[in-house]
């Protein structure tokens, strides 16, 4: 199997997994859903350490991943090279952002927002509230799969740490920092978070940074950096133009 084929197959496997998991848990209330995704994540991250699967997963030592040939016109060495890799990652991030933005503006996005607000009333208005949530779940998992695959190409190595809970919480913190109310927010948040983590990492305080960042951002800048900028822009245009009456 060529490297490209392997990537595609992995992507499909994750998509199928997301569909099955989503089918099971998309119906539940927000809290139960949160705990179920947590449980599912932990299940996977611990299963790679099973003795029986050691040959495939490398157990606690992890797996070195390399490939011959080219993927997207680049060699393995190119992926490991930050200068040559970052355009790929950056493009992927913005494409993902674009996809999310399109969904937000679509009918599916409107339905999802309404379901988040008042799921019961949506059912009472004739909507199937299960299907949209399932679709959204599979979509975001597919995006996560892409980022995971890119990570493997870049790092050339994967271990149980790559699957740990802190990866999820870091992603969450990064999204919060940028602002979850917009499509560009998480991308900006990712930038801020990575820079900041490198800074704090120099003083060996990454965990502390994560904790402080979460608390500070939620209390002070709940809509994140991008959200805050958008709000400020809205306020100033409103005071300039006056309230519009349609």
């Amino acid at each position, binding site marked *: 199997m060529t490297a490209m084929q392997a990537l595609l197959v992995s992507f499909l496997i994750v998509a199928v997994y997301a569909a099955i998991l989503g089918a099971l848990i998309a119906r539940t209330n927000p*809290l139960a859903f949160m705990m179920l995704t947590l449980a599912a994540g932990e299940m996977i991250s611990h299963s790679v350490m099973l003795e029986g699967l050691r040959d495939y997963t490398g157990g606690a030592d992890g797996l070195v991943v390399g490939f011959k040939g080219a993927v997207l016109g680049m060699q393995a060495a190119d992926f490991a090279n930050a200068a040559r890799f970052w355009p790929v990652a950056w493009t992927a991030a913005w494409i993902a952002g674009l996809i999310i933005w399109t969904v937000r503006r679509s009918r599916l996005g409107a339905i999802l927002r309404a379901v988040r607000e008042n799921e019961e009333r949506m059912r009472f208005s004739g909507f199937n509230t299960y299907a949209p949530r399932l679709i959204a779940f599979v979509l975001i998992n597919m995006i996560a799969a892409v980022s995971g695959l890119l990570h493997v190409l870049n790092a050339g190595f994967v271990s149980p740490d790559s699957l740990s809970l802190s990866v999820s919480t870091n992603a969450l913190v990064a999204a919060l920092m940028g602002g979850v109310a917009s499509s560009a927010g998480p991308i900006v948040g990712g930038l801020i978070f990575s820079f900041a983590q490198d800074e704090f990492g120099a003083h060996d305080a990454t965990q502390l940074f994560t*904790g402080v960042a979460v608390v500070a951002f939620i209390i002070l800048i709940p809509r994140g950096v991008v959200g805050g900028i958008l709000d400020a822009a809205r306020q100033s245009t409103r005071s300039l133009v006056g309230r519009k009456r349609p």
Partner: protein
Amino acid sequence: MIALLIANSLALASLLIMLSSGLALIYGLRDVINFGHGALYMLGAYLGYTVALLGGFWLALFVVPILLACLGVAFERLVLRPLQSRSHIEVALVTLGLGIILGQILIFFYGGAARSVDAPRILSGSIEAFGLSYPA
């Protein structure tokens, strides 16, 4: 062998029961998911260790719950009340952040090595039950 497993499980389970009933209580009464609950558990253990060093196990057993109770009141007043109007997930994430911070503070003060507390005489030794000698 089975009896030993059962005894071990019961011991761990009772700790877990205490921990989770606290979590359930806060959720049921205040509608708050406290992701920092585990960190508080850790704080209790480390405080217990410190107090026990100073005044023995029984003093720790008496004093630490009171200390943590005060911390609970402070947590309610300083954290939960001001954030009352925020959404569930925001509050839950704040507790997560605070839990992480608390954990890091404890690691800073106590280091990463394991510490032990000596059990008082009444609770040391073993109990004979079901033909098995189990540490009290």
